[in-house]
């Protein structure tokens, strides 16, 4: 079964510090994409970063980067220089194979302390 697991329901980080959110997944696919989405308190989900499984290089988007360990099926998100606006729910997601839909983890609520 295709699953996505986020083991940290809540995390907290001091402003300007670095935080890492964990995600593991299970898939039988050999080539796939992985996603991190952010849901601020206003509720609209937005894509933060995307990783292609066949690329060994970890994806980066400004202060956001991933640590992708394909053999371990691990896909963590690192947020550097945390800002107050980073406070949100973060969801890891994986396409459900040929099903055509994204499978999401239960999310991690990130708080940023000033």
């Amino acid at each position, binding site marked *: 079964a295709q699953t996505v697991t986020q083991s940290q329901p809540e995390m907290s980080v001091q402003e300007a510090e670095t935080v890492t959110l964990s995600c593991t997944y299970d898939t039988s696919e050999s080539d796939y994409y992985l996603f991190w989405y952010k849901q601020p308190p206003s509720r609209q*989900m937005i894509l933060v970063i995307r990783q*292609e499984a066949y690329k060994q290089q970890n994806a980066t988007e400004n202060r956001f980067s991933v640590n992708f360990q394909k053999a371990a099926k691990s896909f963590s998100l690192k947020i550097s220089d945390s800002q107050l606006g980073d406070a949100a729910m973060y969801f890891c997601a994986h*396409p459900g194979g040929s099903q055509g*839909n*994204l499978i999401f983890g239960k999310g991690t609520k990130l708080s940023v302390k000033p």
Partner: protein
Amino acid sequence: EAGVTQSPTHLIKTRGQQVTLRCSPISGHTSVYWYQQALGLGLQFLLWYDEGEERNRGNFPPRFSGRQFPNYSSELNVNALELEDSALYLCASSRHTGLVTGELFFGEGSRLTVL
């Protein structure tokens, strides 16, 4: 460019009633996805429509149904509402069918409360 729009934003219903939620995708997007976000459960996949056809559905009872119109907008219908249907219902659209590489664009959701 307008984003994904959903209506209504909030609604309150009682057990046994029926509800219809609406979604307009981004122009040019043919795929529409519905997700249920209940407290503590993350996003649960409900339905996927593309080109007017239902392509896949999640593990939900038949009282959850929907359709996609020729202009690619979509409706989600929930019959015989139960208390546990209280949730945020999110609609998302995508340019590509069979999402593998594409990004989902989400609306702000419809908050349903069942009393």
